């Protein structure tokens, strides 16, 4: 083993047994990353939007002016009304407060994409690691399987799976995860295959470490940045996808406070009671915009190949 200080692919220093010392370098890198993010105005806007979404999801019961997802203590007369001092964003045809429902809607809007992306990573990353590390027939098998799933236009496979399982938010989340994992497999497989030949991986194997240890301790940390970038953008895309599925009736079902469903419910009244669709749709747009801005900024910062702006 060389006595010179080693540097991993990500630029992080490595310990003498060849493992990337990601843990030790993490606080400094995180601080540097945050400082760099802070300098990018669009990234700050993204962070702000994401923070607002998280706050709304966590504190919906405290923030919402009306309890029970906007249904409780509403106006005496259960009817639709435009934005007013009592109901900032108006009420829906059942007299439910729209602002409260949008705040409660932040919960599924955040939780479902988190679950979908976590599941997709959980399935996709190990398969990508194994395919890239082992190569050969197993690699072929896994990648052709991934290709099969990637051969469907985005969302189409998810829609068909939901139609098979029955429309519900849980099934929509499962369907999205099932059609999303191959992206992570492809991403991680590419990185793993290129890292396999690097001296620090060969060194670790020569020391007799088990393949699983090499993959998890030595290769995975170097794939972390691209996975984080991909996941950030994907959370936004899944918010969009869940909203779209709900809009055509394949995800959340009434009377849930779900943004996509609310846009669909307001569609009939779009020319008169515009706020019914406009505000929940704006919530989806801003949430997706937040993750996309953040993902873009992270990509520029974490991916050395990106042209500097």
């Amino acid at each position, binding site marked *: 083993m060389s006595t010179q200080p080693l540097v991993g692919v990500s630029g992080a220093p490595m310990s003498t047994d060849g493992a990337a010392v990601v843990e030790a370098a993490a606080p400094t890198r995180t601080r540097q990353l945050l400082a760099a993010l802070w300098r990018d105005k669009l990234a700050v806007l993204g962070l702000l939007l994401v923070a607002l979404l998280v706050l709304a999801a966590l504190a919906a019961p405290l923030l919402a002016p009306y309890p029970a997802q906007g249904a409780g203590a509403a106006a005496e007369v259960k009817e639709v009304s435009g934005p007013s001092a009592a109901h900032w964003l108006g009420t829906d045809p059942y007299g439910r407060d729209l602002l409260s429902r949008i705040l409660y809607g932040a919960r599924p809007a955040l939780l479902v994409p988190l679950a979908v992306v976590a599941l997709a990573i959980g399935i996709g990353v190990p398969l990508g690691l194994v395919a890239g590390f082992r190569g050969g027939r197993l690699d072929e098998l896994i990648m052709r399987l991934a290709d099969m799933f990637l051969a469907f*236009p985005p969302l*189409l496979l998810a829609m068909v799976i939901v139609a098979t399982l029955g429309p519900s938010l849980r099934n929509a989340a499962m369907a999205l995860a099932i059609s999303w994992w191959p992206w992570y497999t492809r991403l991680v497989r590419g990185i793993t295959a290129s890292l396999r030949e690097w001296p620090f991986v060969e060194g670790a194997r020569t020391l007799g470490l088990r393949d699983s240890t090499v993959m998890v301790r030595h290769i995975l940390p170097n794939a972390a940045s691209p996975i984080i970038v991909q996941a950030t953008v994907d959370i936004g895309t899944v918010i969009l996808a869940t909203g779209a599925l709900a*809009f055509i009736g394949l995800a959340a079902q009434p009377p849930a406070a779900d943004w996509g469903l609310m846009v669909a419910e307001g569609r009939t009244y779009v020319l008169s009671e515009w706020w019914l669709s406009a505000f929940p749709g704006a919530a989806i747009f801003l949430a997706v915009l937040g993750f996309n801005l953040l993902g873009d900024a992270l990509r520029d910062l974490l991916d050395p190949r990106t042209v500097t702006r």
Partner: protein
Amino acid sequence: MPRFLLRRTGTALLVLLGTTLVTFVLARVVPANPAVTYLGPRARPEAIARITRELGLDRPLPVQYGRYLADLLRGDWGISIGTKRPVLAEIGDRLPATLELLAAAMLIAVLAGVVLGVVAARHQNQFADHAIRLLAIGGVSMPAFWLGLLTQMLFFGRLGWLPATGRLDSDLEFTHPLTEVTGLHLVDALVSGNLTTLGDAALHLVLPGLTLAAYPTGVIARMVRATMLEALAQDHIRAARAYGVAERVVVWRIALRNALPPTATVLGLTLAYSLTGAFFVEVVFNWPGLGQYAATALLNADYPVIMGVTVLGAVTYTLTNLVVDLAHARLDPRVRLT
């Protein structure tokens, strides 16, 4: 090139075979009773028994898959539960509407995307660049179904400038009947010299076309900006500038020519993405295309239709990717070696 072409086409065929396996599993293996799924929840027991026999659902799964494939290739894609008509014929009826919408959206997206991308790159880090970057990322963050509703509110509801739904004014059917040749209204109206219908069809295309174009415009603008920045930093551009070539020529002729090939790759992918985008846009604008057809089928569990549209989607998507790869290989010889 021929070897690359053969290998790539072979992989595409293999992948297509795989997609039929996925649709087969979804249609026949996942549901507890595929005959009920196939016929709908109100099917009589006799009908269930008949379809079980007809579809060979009592046979082993590999045999069933073989028959499913043979039917697909023969053009027997089943009968719609909702309309009782052959699925393939209905797809054929509705395809032109979707193609017309996609073509309009892609035309808008390419024109707007390239211009925005070039302008942003030309004014890097200035106000125009920031505004265009925000606009482009806004385009890819916008739910198409919501944008559609917003345009309806504004351009139909408030301003009354443009029609909100459908492909043609219903009155025109009587006053200026259209001779259908291709099913593409713009083409048919132009060929038959029916200018009133041509204008009306074009007006009906504006809102759904713009809505569907939002996402691809954003993607193309971002891609063109990035590739233009790279192209503008090249030595020969510096040389051209040093020789005093007009900036307009340097940017729009020389640099853009280098920036376009990578954009072609992204174009194929965004076209494929817009296929699903069309689903939601068609629902919002009551556009009688494949997307609306599929959305209705999905909600009513009209299985033969769902599977038909899915297979068609996978075939189109795979072929688009194949064409993009082959075009890319033609433009960039290095690709053929990998």
